[in-house]
């Protein structure tokens, strides 16, 4: 980056805000199309009841909760990169953290829809919040679902604030480049940032503080989500390994999603200088690590199930690889444990094409991991008399597609109106302009 100047950086990074791009437009239209498919399916479901989905009792949770956990998981990598790596002063985060943080916000936004989507009478979902009412009724604080409500809403608020703080100096930079009405908007949003030393001092304090505040959330939120399962008696769910296992999985899938998002962005917006192979290799290494942890967790699960000598538990774990859902199980294993091993090779780690493909594979694998946990356990509970084979139907798939549409719509809008790479932090790595330069030029 040595040949870059402050001005150049700002110009490059906020270029997308001005220059319309056909590709981007098409992507946005597709996203909105997907979203409307999902919206239509939801309309049908609200009118006729959850029956329009493919639920097959006792499989009471299906694609919706699967997708909920999937999106919550995606969220985590963003916070990890922006907060934890910031505290560890991992320099490579600079280029990627803004985009991944945006990903976090929108992923949690998407995830938040699903508990409502899957509730039988979602118009009463507000009963899950503790508020004083004439019925003198309160939610059940023993229930992991109530913990979920708190965990998710906290996570959304904190990471949104953290995200916004990070944006302030960059919006100021944008303000100085745009004209007319835009100037007003960015001006308002950046809270009159002028970049004085005083402001910087307070700014860094606040940023550090929120980074610290976000850090525990990375662990806690997905742990709470995992308790939805671990806290219940269902074979295949009732296991203490779930929290760490879920967190690892979350970061694994999150990093994959960051790759999936950044690789196209880089080529689209010509950000080769800012998102270098070096960045991507770091991400790939993180995937490799978390993927290994995940594989270990799978193995542990099996060992414990066998060691517990509990026929119900063991029955479920035998059923997964051999029963009706074998296809889903092996899809998960190959996507999450086998293909990512390719990342051991530097050639793969440094080839954007391969990284992109592998990141997609991991995304698929992680979705199926959740599907495996949920569907197989419920389809094969304690009483064989109630065993079924559940498969999602069109409505559920429609809503799944809709959720991707929803996520990408926000993300694509974001990259169009906000600097998706942290200008200020990039500049830290750029040689400051000196009088000498002015003389030579």
């Amino acid at each position, binding site marked *: 980056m040595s040949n870059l100047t402050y001005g150049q950086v700002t110009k490059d990074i906020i270029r997308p805000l001005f220059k319309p791009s056909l590709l981007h437009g098409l992507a946005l239209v597709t996203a909105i199309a997907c979203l409307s498919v999902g919206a239509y399916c939801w309309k049908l479901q609200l009118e*006729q*009841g*959850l*029956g329009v989905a*493919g*639920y*097959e*009792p*006792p499989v*009471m*949770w299906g694609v919706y909760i699967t997708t909920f956990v999937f999106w919550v998981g995606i969220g985590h990598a963003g916070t990890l990169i922006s907060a934890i790596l910031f505290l560890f002063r991992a320099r490579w985060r600079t280029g990627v953290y803004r985009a991944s943080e945006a990903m976090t916000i929108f992923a949690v936004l998407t995830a938040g829809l699903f*508990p409502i989507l*899957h*509730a*039988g*009478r*979602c118009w*009463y*979902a507000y*009963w*899950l919040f503790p508020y004083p009412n004439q019925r003198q*009724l*309160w*939610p*059940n604080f*023993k*229930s*992991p*679902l*109530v913990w979920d*409500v708190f965990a998710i809403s906290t996570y959304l608020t904190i990471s949104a604030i953290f995200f916004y703080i990070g944006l302030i100096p960059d919006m100021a930079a944008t303000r100085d480049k745009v004209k007319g009405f835009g100037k007003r908007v960015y001006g308002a949003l950046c809270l009159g940032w002028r970049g004085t030393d005083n402001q910087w001092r307070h700014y860094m304090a606040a940023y550090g503080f929120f980074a610290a505040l976000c850090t525990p959330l990375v662990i806690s939120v997905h742990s709470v989500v995992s308790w*939805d399962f671990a*806290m*219940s*008696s*269902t074979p295949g769910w009732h296991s203490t390994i779930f929290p760490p296992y879920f967190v690892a999985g979350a970061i694994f899938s999150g990093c994959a999603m960051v790759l999936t998002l950044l690789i196209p962005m880089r080529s689209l917006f010509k950000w080769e200088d800012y998102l270098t192979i070096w960045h991507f290799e770091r991400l790939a290494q993180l995937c490799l690590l978390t993927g290994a942890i995940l594989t270990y967790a799978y193995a542990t699960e099996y060992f414990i199930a066998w060691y*517990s*000598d*509990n*026929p*119900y538990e*063991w*029955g479920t774990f035998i059923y997964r690889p051999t029963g009706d859902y074998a296809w889903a199980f092996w899809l998960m294993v190959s996507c999450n444990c086998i293909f990512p091993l390719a990342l051991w090779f530097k050639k793969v780690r440094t080839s954007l094409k391969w990284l992109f493909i592998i990141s997609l594979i991991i995304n698929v694998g992680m979705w199926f991991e959740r599907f495996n946990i949920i569907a197989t356990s*419920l389809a094969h*509970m*304690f*009483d*064989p*008399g*109630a*065993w*079924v084979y559940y498969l999602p139907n069109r409505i559920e798939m429609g809503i799944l597609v809709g959720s991707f549409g929803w996520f990408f719509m926000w993300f694509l809008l974001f990259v169009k109106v906000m600097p998706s790479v942290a200008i200020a932090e990039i500049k830290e790595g750029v040689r400051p302009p000196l009088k000498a330069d002015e003389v030579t030029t």
Partner: protein
Amino acid sequence: MSKMNRRDFFRVVGVSGTAGLVACDPKSPAEQLYPYVIDPEEITPGLPTYYATVVEGCSVLAKVREGRVVHIESNPNRENAGVSPAAQASVQETYDPDRAQGPQVGGAAASWDEALGTIAAAVAANPAGTRWLGRYRTGSLQALISGFVSGLGGQNAHWEPHGHSVLANAAKIAWGSSAPPAFDMSGAEVIVSFGADFLHTWSDSGNHCAGWAQARSKDNGHIAHFTAIEPRVSNTSAKADTWLSTRPGTEAGVARALAKLVADEKGSTGAAKAYLAGVDVAAAASAAGIPEEKLKALASAIASKPSVVFPGGVTTYGSDATDLALAVLVLNQVAGNVGTSVLPDGNPLGPIHSYTEAMDAVGGAEVLFIDGLDPVFSSPSGAAQEVIAAAKLVVVFGNSMPEGMPEGTILLPPGSELETWGDHQLGHSFMALQQPAMKPLYNTRSVGDALLSLSKHSQIAPLLANGTEAVPTDDDGGSSTTDFAAADFQSFIKGRWNNMHVASGDVAPFSSAWVQALRVGGINLATTPVSAELKALPAPGAATLVDGTTLLLFSHQNLLDGRHANKAWLQEIPETLSGYTWGTWAEISPATADRLGVSNKHTLTIKSASGSIEAGVSVSKGMRDDAVAVVVGNGHKTGNRYSKDYGANPAVLVNGLRDAKSGEVAWLGTSVEIAKGAADNIMSKLNGHTDQDGRPLARASYVKDVEEAGPDAETGSLAPGLGIPLDPRIPEDSYDMYPEPEHPTYRFGMSIDLDSCTGCTSCQVACASENNIAIAGPEQHRKSRYMGWIRMDAFWEGEGDNPDVRFLPVMCQQCSHAPCEGVCPVLATYHNLDGLNAMIYNRCVGTRYCANNCPYSARRFNYHTFRWPESYNLMLNPDVSTREMGVMEKCTFCIQRIRYAKANHRANGIDVVPNDVLESLPACVSACPTGAMTFGNLKDENATVSKIASGPRAYQMLDALNTKPGVRYLTKVVHTKPVDPHHGGGHGDDHSSNDNH
């Protein structure tokens, strides 16, 4: 229904109360209150009234709310309580939205006068041409029918497709008796059946169930051993301790061989000796494919112990049906059962005719009356059609038009039994009185009333000689007579009862006897002990054996021969063994399934000389490789919304084969070709997986241990489960994270005896009726969305000739440490002071977490807002809310009944409801015909349920999870030592954990 609004209906708690959660319907203006114009006596708005009556041959109490029958209870005045599913479902016949609302002439609505006028004219044209084809009738109706038809010089025939003509014929030949014998197994130690589905569809199954419970109870001294000798494991033989699988058609030979062996041990004389002279045991055994020594062992058991042997049924009645029945009667005779466990003339059903007799009688009819039959549907290949078509005029007594009736047929709707008068002889000792429990909904007249008004018609009256019975003076002033002058059928019946009363020599005034009969549901008849001598017996004919695949037919557990096909509950509730609903299935053996490459997902094409059908596959360990069994009951081409176009009618497969001696249809003996069907099996199998995989859910105890166990045997000592995770090194109290819930007054609990449970589904129907359970229908069942609160698991534990099928009714177990409670985010489900898992529908948000966390999978979710056809709303129980979409529901131990009982006793100053009231409080318990279920307060150790729950056979399902359920199961008793789950399952430490409550 517009007529009904005009009726004096009090609809506050009525319709609006039942509209339930879904009825908060903002478009309707404020609800209206309709008081009576003149309030009737007996009816108090909000309180039920009960009427003792009889429906579907079952003496019951009809529960009435605001003038509508809402539920059928068992009649406490009869010693063997319990209600058959069909009897309970008669409510649905009453409110059937599609039933005929008045007479129809050629499909067009007509007035009674028109219809009767047309009939009268036709009859008058040629009185002697009058013919009657009806189901079995007893009591007054039978007298009236015979009087009417014979009065005109016509003929009446009474036939039922799966009826008793064969047995009746055999009894006539053997003993010269006029009615088939009754079977009483209560004292028996050895029970043998040659294919009679006696616990479900065969004859007086209600009494048989009660008898079964007694025969299998330890108080009886010994626990009876049941051997089923038939080619297929039916719902009844699923309870068998030994299943001797016979080659179809060889049963008669086996019966004779058995009789021979018994006779050799006990000696025989006269007719029996002569009959058995030439029997070759070895040949019979090898022909049937049964090892001879097994027959010998069984024979010596029969000879040495009190026993009862049941004859064949639809499955085993071939061209030598009467010979099978005869052989069985002889066997009973030589075993000395006649007069003790087999009662000649014990089962009077009125005149009984075989198919051939009936068709001959009906042939050449001028006017043909069809009463309560669907002859074309149930006759082999619809053969009855020509005979019926030959008649000039066909008159049908039925609530809807049967199949294949000619043009211009007249339909006279008799309404439901709950709306009309009648009397029926149940067994040889009870005359049941049928009184209307509600006003007729529509313009209908009972068969009796219709006949009486017909007989009064100007053109008919002169033809009829008036009633012959002497009519004693009616001492309560009311007019009652037994001749055709009777004002209506009620007074006709009253007249006959008056005669009976006088004949019985009872000095009490008839009026009081009549009132008493109305109160208790009938009168006991003086029974004379019958012993019968064998007459000379005809030589047995040859059996028809089939090479290749034999077709076996069997009556549907609840739809019987198809007569109940329009009752939604009976279609909706999974058939116990197969788990199928709303359709027709064919059972094949696993080997056959492999050979054809089919599974339960596929259909089977079954082709015979006379026709072919497609039916869903049900792979059953209880089938022979050389046979296929098809269920009868569905496949109606006409009929109402719940019967039309479900499944296929296997009667089309049966050819002209008849039983040589009785002339009855030989349902057995048809050769068929089976192949994989084109379509997929769209029926949903609702009992999941029929193997426990070594999980001790439905447990068994060895009969010897049970018989030896003393009164002070440790709780659950004979019901070993998996000891996990209750490790003996850990003190029991430290398993629980939360403190023990408080139960100050009650801890409601239930005990279910898996040994006496016959899987008859009565409890399921009762539950549906009491709790307004939605009728989800086939579409939903395809996604396993069965809404019933009781699931009947059927697990095959045995192999070969020891089927050991375990029926396991699973409802909410009302756990003390319920997994469902902790996870509900809004406390819609919680533990209440009475030890119940409360489920508050209107608080439920529908996260379904509770259902995921229920180890018993006992919770049901409303995936849609299920509603009922308009007229079904009158059937709903006003005390139970109906549920809207997105709400979880489950068994509540009939909380509405519990609270009703509490309120009543509180009002009388009794704070704790006594046990005898609680014992049969929930709908399922009071409906159970074997008394397998008991309800009560576990806090009170004197309560029956507590005593039962502390026995050695008692256990809690999935006790290892330490959920501490309120439901205790009693193990099934098996005659082959069961595999110990610890070693069998190969898991867990060896200590059970039933003592946690």
